[in-house]
């Protein structure tokens, strides 16, 4: 398991124990974390699992593929530390990861 902290737009923090090998999105959704919609169920097709990765973790969450880049590029709220959480795999390395969820999923 890896401990992940999700911080909502209004500052509310949620900590979950995420299963290794699962996606960050599934860790959120299966633990009822608000702020992540994941309409497509994790196939990188909707961009509603958008999160902001805290800077010190950015290089540890893995590389972005072209499909994720394409979907994220259309998000009006995209920031430099934006990722689609369905594309981030939970590993031991990510124990302690902190991400923020946006005010809106679009």
């Amino acid at each position: 398991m890896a401990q992940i902290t999700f911080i909502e737009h209004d500052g509310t923090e949620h900590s979950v124990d995420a299963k290794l090998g699962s996606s960050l999105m599934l860790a959120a959704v299966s633990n009822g974390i608000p702020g992540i919609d994941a309409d497509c169920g994790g196939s990188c097709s909707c961009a509603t699992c958008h999160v902001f990765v805290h800077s010190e973790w950015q290089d540890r969450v893995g590389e972005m593929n072209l499909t994720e880049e394409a979907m994220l590029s259309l998000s009006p709220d995209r920031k430099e530390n934006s990722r689609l959480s369905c594309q981030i795999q939970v590993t031991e390395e990510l124990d302690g990861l902190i991400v923020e969820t946006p005010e809106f999923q679009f």
Partner: protein
Amino acid sequence: MSEVIAQEHKQSKWSMVGKDPYSMPIEEIDLSHPGIWQANQFLPFLERLRKEDPVHFCRESAVGPYWSVMKYKDIMEVDTTPDIYSSEPTIGIVDTFEEFTLPSFIAMDRPKHDEQRRIAQPVVAPANLKNLEELIRKRVCRILDNLPLEKEFDWVKNVSVELTTQMLATLFDFPFKDRYKLTYWSDMATAIPGGGLAKSQAERWEAIEECLAYFTRLWNKRIKEDPGFDLVSMLAHGEATRQMPPEEYLGNILLLIVGGNDTTRNSITGGVVALNEYPEQYEKLRANNKHIPNMVSEIIRWQTPLAYMRRTATKDTELRGKEIKAGDKVVMWYVSGNRDEETIVRADEFIIDRPNARKHLSFGFGIHRCMGNRLAEMQLRILWEEVMNRFHTVEVVGAPERVYSSFIKGYTRLPVKLHSL
């Protein structure tokens, strides 16, 4: 005169109305003709194809040969592979006439698609929607408060059309007194000549040209003003769009009008139809308003206001063992995927607290996923909140009349009676 033409069309050799999909050779099944859609006879056709020929080639039809993709998973694959399944030159099943081509980003591939979508998006982004919520609620309340109780009227005309028209006028900052032109132009843009609304292509075109002229005047006005948050202003001032040729501007305007028009309209009507067909769901709703947001997604799934989206293969490819050739027309039947029991449990049923309700295909997936989806949901949510505040039942008291189209899955009339709390 137009009625006679419409009759001929409906009795055309291509119509499947009255046919049993299970008693005919499967190769003859053709979903493209509007007949079975207007007659509400389409479900068994979708079912047979899903079961026996999920990637189905129709050799002969009024729109030429085309593939039908019927299963949820296959539709997802096509929708999320835009490099192979292009949106150019059109996302409609009818191949465009050269002289009537209207470019808009729904029918563009990357990178042009992305450039244009990014400009229009902010106006319907949730951050902007927050600003619109109060205005929408005010308008909903005014419409609902003016409806007659215990007296039959047409829900489509008095609620569905009225509400979406007002919404469109707001998005474009369009002169409110002229707002019905938006509905008219949108309906003409998608009309099938001879189907009841437009007698001919020329008549369609006349309406579309009137639309262009009006919006050109609006453009010329807005370009002189400071950039605003309405759609015209955003297009007139946006870096990637202010140089666009008139056909492209018109194409995008029509896209936004059509996108925000009958889809939302038909979901508003569809919700009433669904709740009447499933009275125990209506009871569930009465017992707890908290179901409304999830119900909105379920309405959109159950109704599937756009039955399909079409793509064109850019290269030879394979889908579920079928060989698709470069240039082939590939039609994703969203309405079929939304009723696919392999992916969606009890798919034909309307269940307002269905889990994973947002997973439906009605907005599409991938880079073309409906940009207005949150706006549509918001309108529906506010409508049902205010309906439940006022009426015990919106009762359907006559047969729904449906649109003559295999694309627009909607209603032209719904007789209802309101019963207060």
